[in-house]
């Protein structure tokens, strides 16, 4: 097997992982701080992609679209938090799942009502449209490298935010004891809205960046939401570090599985069957990974305290 292809696939895995991290970070933050299971997260991802596509089509600039996606997703997140989510913190998880599932339907049909049933067009910006040469001779799209870079920046930024700033201190305090920080005079309600908007903005950013290489359409968020849940369960619910490690693990295992398994089966059966069997097992691989990790560490790799 050629080294170039192998390196390319490793990068692909890394890029998928980084994209999942952007989704999972917000999801795990919201669960960690507020104890809320938020199924609407996939819809916020969709809102980001649609905002970016609409603004990019209107102004001709992907970058303005990217800013719009952050703003729109954060705004949608804040509004949803104020109107609906706020009433769910005290309730049990089943009520939260029901209410946020209803929100998925509202967002999906609302988006369809605004933008129509047909997928929107969104292309990568010309600045990032080339490819770069990898060691070994293969070409790798610049845009995918940029996604990896953005993911790394967000990871570092989140780490700084949470460990080095006053807001981060409050978030950490809110995770461990929400009554106590309320009693100490921190405005818990505003803090929650802020965290929710931050998580939403990250989902919107992921949606906009991924929308440029995939398709911007209603329902695009749900498959990603499922993967993001796998990531945070593997990483340990509530842990940002866990989300990062889990996302990279899922991205690499999924990509390498799709790449290597059919070839491995090809050694013992004909190519057509190997493709079928290998493809089928590759699509189960991350769930098998999740099962194994949960068997060994029932609370995930980096379970949050408390």
């Amino acid at each position, binding site marked *: 097997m*050629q080294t*170039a*292809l192998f390196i*390319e*696939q490793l990068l*692909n*895995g890394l*890029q*998928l992982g980084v994209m999942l991290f952007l989704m999972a970070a917000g999801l795990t933050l919201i669960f960690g701080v507020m104890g809320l299971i938020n199924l609407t997260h996939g819809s916020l991802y969709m809102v980001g992609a649609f905002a970016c596509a609409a603004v990019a089509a209107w102004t001709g600039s992907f970058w303005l679209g990217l800013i719009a996606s952050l703003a729109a997703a954060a705004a949608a997140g804040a509004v949803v938090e104020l109107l609906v989510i706020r009433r769910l913190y005290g309730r049990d998880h089943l009520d939260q799942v029901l209410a946020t599932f209803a929100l998925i339907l509202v967002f*999906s*049909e609302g988006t*369809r009502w605004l933008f129509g*049933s*047909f*997928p*929107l*067009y969104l*292309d*990568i910006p010309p600045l990032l*449209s080339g*490819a770069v040469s990898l060691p070994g001779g*293969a*070409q790798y*799209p610049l*845009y*995918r490298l940029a996604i990896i870079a953005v993911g790394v920046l967000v990871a570092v930024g989140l780490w700084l935010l949470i460990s080095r700033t006053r807001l981060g201190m409050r978030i950490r305090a809110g995770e461990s004891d929400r009554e106590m920080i309320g009693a100490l005079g921190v405005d818990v309600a505003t803090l929650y809205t802020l965290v929710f908007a931050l998580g939403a903005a990250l989902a919107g950013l992921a949606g906009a960046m*991924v929308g*440029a*290489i*995939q*398709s*911007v*359409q*209603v*329902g*695009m968020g749900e*498959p990603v939401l499922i993967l993001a849940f796998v990531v945070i369960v593997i990483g340990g619910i509530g842990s940002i570090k866990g989300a990062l490690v889990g996302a990279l693990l899922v991205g690499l295992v999924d*990509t390498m599985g*799709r*790449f290597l398994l*059919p070839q491995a089966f090809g050694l013992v059966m004909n*190519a*057509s069957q190997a*493709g*079928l069997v290998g*493809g*089928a097992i*590759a*699509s189960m691989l991350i769930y098998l990974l999740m099962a194994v990790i949960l068997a060994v560490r029932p609370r995930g790799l980096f379970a949050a305290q408390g």
Partner: protein
Amino acid sequence: MKKIVAAAVLGLAMGVSGLAFAEPVKIGLITTTSGGGAGLGVDVRDAFQLAIKQSGNAEITVIVEDDGQKPELAVQIADKMVQSDQVDLMTGIIWSNLAMAVVPSVTAQDIIYLSPNAGPSPLAGAGCSPNYFNVAYQNDNFHEAMGQYANGEYKKVFIMAPNYPAGTDSLTGFKRYYKGELAGEVYTQLGQTDYAAEIAQIRASGADGVFVFLPGGMGIAFTKQYAQSGVGIPLMGPAFSFSQDVLGAIGDAALGVKNSASWSNDLDNPANKAFVESFKAAYGRLPSVYAAQAFDTANLILSAVGKASVKDKDAFRAALKAADFASVRGKFKFNTNQHPIQDIYVREVVKVGDVLTNKIIGTAFTDHGDAYAKDCKM
């Protein structure tokens, strides 16, 4: 001039179908108008209603319901339409898995079902029914056409489809006619949106052609990523990934892609010219292949309504089977299993002005039936 011709053809069609049995006819149309697959269902609904409206036949009512692309929901709606709405005819389903859930039970209750899109192989072979008419295609047809086309163009083709029944049927159909060597055969996950790993394999495979069957969002994502990767090996597939409903979202990345279909916007016949013009006028967009099939389905029904009473099932089935209508596909007739015998074309994605659309560049099959008709005992 075009408009006058169009109006004349319409007038003629109205004249023919407006005669005879002026009795109420109730048609149940189950299709997907919400969620990710809504674009296809909206085209089917709009084209079907357009044809009924153009006929001027006020006795026909169409009940439209949304299945949300969920088989269990489609089954419930079908039960409701049969039992409480008491429809005479049913149509509209886009997806093969939904068709398999609905069609056999509906036709067993002696309701006539006309498919405007899905054509799963069981319903074309041993499971065929006198009450089931497929006005679109048998699922394998477009893939077979691409296999036939690839014979003349490529020596080593890389083929790829999602791992679900229609996906395996697709690659089987392609291989039924393609005689060259395969550079690789890959099954992806259904609903997958990132194809970086597969594109890397295509690049490394040494293929001189790539065939993909990736309907809906999967095709949009793949085609964009494939163009961005700069691999540059010619791409081909069935019309589903390169139809009018998704071309706008793919953008210039789709330019030059070869795809197969039984219909195209530029197909040169009076019925099609009138259809494309009136669809554009009514909805402000170009029709897709799904719209064309639904328009034909409606006109087939109208032709039969003009000849026989819908209450007289035998006579009505015979009237449908005669397929005595002006198809937008130019020529159309039914095989022994009540699936189409039709020409299948190879189209290329081109830009007309600033709108992406398909242009016919050749004919893969003339009067093509399907491989399952021989298993149908009717």
